[in-house]
């Protein structure tokens, strides 16, 4: 009996100790520190290695690019103060900002810039073996040569003109790395990185937390924060919970259904739509999708506003074309395909399908940029059923799904499939050309075999057109045709959602590319 009583007291004492001393790991106790809840642990701190946007959130604070987006469609100087393009559009010369140092004190020179691109593309570069750099070829494959003309001038030569080249230099994959540090660290560079951005690595316990501290050698305005702590929180719901419990000050993309509650509790919900598109692709090479009336009918059949409101809780913007509002080439005067099931049925009948038809749709269970793939798929299935189209949904895991998409609609025997695309470089050519020109038919990204010679002509001209106004016009015309052709079932453009607590000051999403956050000017009260 006395043993049991003793054990009972011991248990009570231990619990009191554990509970009583728990203040939770409040990220807010150190006022110069910002604690961020992000979607998973970072994968690598080498700017060119990661392909996941989540890791790029950290890289954005550590690295600079040659050029960057301001608050409108015009490129701003970054590490390059000015630049010029040769008349044939093949050579870009950049003058570098003087006096810039990496976080470790190494001076940043044209050599580092040339190395940054060389190691991604040239097998003979000493940095190549520490790759792979998966996005290197996608964004910078046009670069034929990177040359350091002088310590402050670098020349990038292309193999063919590319009007979107400058825009592609804004992606963080082109973050300029310290050649000396990268080569010295070799494979270990992934664990430390070395850039010239406002913050640098302090310490990283993989899976638990990553801490950045201020770069003492930063060339720009000194950050207000002294450190940023990144905590991986895998479940989106948990990010909302941790925000409410005070463990984090900023949550990236928490569950949309929790936003109203967070707002009512005094948190700031920052949202901005960006260059992203979510659509349902169809196999245009076979009936019934080869008929434009059928595709238009499907576009009229779905209620985008309801999907955006009811499933996405306003974390999206209805779409009627591949490019998002605000992007170069966005055409504000196309058919909005407003919800109209009557018209949809009429079109179906006119196409020869008065009783609809049966088909299959591939739905991935997750995937970057896919928002709520299953819920949206089910809603679309419901809307199409109302006009007589029976859609059988096939759910598959992301990796298996990518494998099918990669084969193209014919080989993989697909009718319909969901997909999304984020335009990290914010240039229309990186959306429209890969996805909708004939030249991109499988094995390219034009999975559904869309083909319109006029669109091809406009997009090819757009790639080479140096005048921004003319370029805009070309893409707008292409958008109008793509919309009229109903090449896809356009659904929505995603918004970036960042929720901050009352202590976070001066946080704003970049209107041009809101999907990566910038924390240099952020402070805490």
């Amino acid at each position, binding site marked *: 009996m006395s043993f049991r009583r003793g054990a009972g007291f011991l248990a009570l004492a231990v619990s009191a*100790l*554990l*509970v009583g*001393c*728990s203040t*939770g*790991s409040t*990220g807010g106790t*150190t006022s110069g520190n910002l*604690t961020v809840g992000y979607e*998973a*642990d970072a*994968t*690598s701190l*080498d700017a060119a*290695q990661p*392909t996941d946007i989540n890791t790029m959130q950290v890289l954005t604070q550590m690295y600079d690019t040659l050029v960057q987006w301001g608050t409108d469609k015009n490129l701003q100087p970054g590490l390059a103060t000015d630049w010029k393009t040769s008349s044939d559009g093949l050579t870009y010369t950049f003058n570098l900002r003087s006096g810039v140092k990496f976080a470790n004190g190494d001076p940043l020179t044209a050599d580092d810039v040339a190395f940054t691109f060389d190691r991604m593309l040239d097998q003979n570069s000493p940095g190549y073996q520490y*790759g*792979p750099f*998966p*996005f290197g*070829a*996608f964004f910078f494959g046009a670069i034929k040569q990177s040359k350091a003309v002088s310590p402050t001038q670098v020349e990038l030569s292309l193999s063919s003109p590319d009007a979107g080249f400058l825009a592609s230099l804004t992606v963080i994959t082109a973050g300029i790395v310290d050649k000396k540090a990268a080569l010295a660290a070799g*494979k270990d560079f*992934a*664990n430390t990185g070395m850039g010239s951005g406002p913050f640098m690595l302090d310490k990283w*316990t*993989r*899976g*638990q*937390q990553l801490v950045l501290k201020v770069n003492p050698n930063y060339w720009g305005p000194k950050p207000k924060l002294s450190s940023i*702590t990144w*905590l*991986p*929180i*895998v*479940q989106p*719901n*948990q990010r909302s*919970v*941790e925000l*409410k*419990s005070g*463990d984090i000050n900023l949550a990236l993309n928490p569950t949309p259904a929790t936003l109203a509650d967070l707002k009512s509790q005094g948190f700031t919900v920052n949202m901005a739509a960006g260059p992203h598109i979510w659509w349902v692709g169809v196999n245009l090479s076979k009936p019934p999708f080869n008929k434009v009336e059928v595709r238009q009918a499907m576009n009229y059949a779905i209620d985008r506003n309801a999907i955006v409101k009811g499933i996405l809780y306003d974390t999206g913007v209805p779409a009627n074309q591949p490019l998002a509002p605000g992007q170069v080439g966005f055409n504000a005067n196309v058919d909005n395909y407003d919800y109209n099931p009557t018209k949809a049925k009429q079109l179906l009948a006119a196409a020869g399908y008065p009783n609809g038809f049966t088909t299959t749709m591939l739905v991935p269970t997750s*995937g*970057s940029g896919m928002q709520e793939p299953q819920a949206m798929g089910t809603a679309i299935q419901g809307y199409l059923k109302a006009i007589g189209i029976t859609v059988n949904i096939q759910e598959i895991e*992301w*990796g*298996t*799904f*990518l*494998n*099918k998409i*990669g084969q193209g609609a014919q080989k993989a025997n697909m009718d319909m499939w969901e997909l*999304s*695309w984020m335009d990290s470089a914010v240039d229309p050519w990186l959306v429209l050309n*890969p996805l909708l020109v004939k030249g991109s038919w499988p*094995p*390219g*990204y034009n999975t559904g075999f869309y083909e319109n010679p006029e669109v091809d002509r406009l997009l090819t001209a757009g790639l080479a057109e140096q005048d921004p106004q003319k370029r805009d016009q070309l893409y707008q015309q292409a958008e109008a045709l793509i919309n009229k052709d109903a090449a896809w079932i356009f659904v929505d453009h995603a918004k970036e959602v960042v929720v901050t607590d009352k202590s976070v000051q001066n946080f704003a999403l970049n209107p041009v590319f809101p999907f990566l956050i910038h924390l240099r000017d952020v402070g805490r009260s």
Partner: protein
Amino acid sequence: MASFLLRRTLLLLPVLWGVTVVIFLALHLAPGNAAQLLLGPLATPKQLQALELQLGLDQPLPVQYLSWMGQVLHGDLGFSISYHTEVSGLVLTHLRDTLVLAGAAFVLATVIGMLLGIVSALFLGRLLDHLINIVDFLGLAMPVFWLSLIFILFFGLHLHWFPTRGMYGVSDTSLLSLAQHLVLPAVALAAAPGAVIAQITRVALIGELNQLYVKVARAKGLSKTSAILGHALRNASIPIVTTLGLEINYIIGGDVLVENVFNWPGVGQLLVQSVLNRDYPVVLGASLLLAVIFVLVNLLTDALYPLFDPRVEVHG
């Protein structure tokens, strides 16, 4: 005993080899490869091929397997494709963190489970016994994922009694911080196994209580409690020890879900993510180490039987 231990340890080798072959085949038979997962939808065949070449994925499967085996026999588990770091370091740290959680849950489940089972048996048929049975069934019925979420909302968010994510506080790696972070996940993970252990203990004890030697002990003047704790428990231990061994398996399985919800940096989370990413070196390395643990745990469980029951002889 010595030959038994030797035989069982040697058995590790074919088991491990079998594990590697099965996992390797399963991974590579799944559609999609690491290169596709890295590039996402941005993967033209040309870029895919280039990446596969760099990752060594273009080699025929037997060549890939043999080169991986060769590395392993030299003590090198390779390099993670998605995490860009040594597999051995990555897996060992995550494994250590899982063992902390799993170990705590196991101890909790065993101690509380056995206590509840003993009390149940002592108060057989009375209110306390019924109450404990209800608690046991609740523990079995509640899915560990759901239970974890309830704990987080109630004890974390509303009552602020315990932290709800991670293993340590943000800049606090003290033992106290670890203990605080362990409470919710370990209790969630221990609920179902604890219930099973409680029920088995109760049933095993009841079985012993009807035996002649217990009646003799009582007749000699021992109290019911002393008879149970001193004599019956020891004889009831065989089924209990067997159950403990089985529950370890459950704990390592349920651990994945708990790690996911609590963001505990364990090997369960690592494994799931690596399978989804088709990160072959990590999946293989982690599976190998987990297989070693499983085999050793089973070995230990079998070797312990003679301690409890001298009638049991371990044969090789």
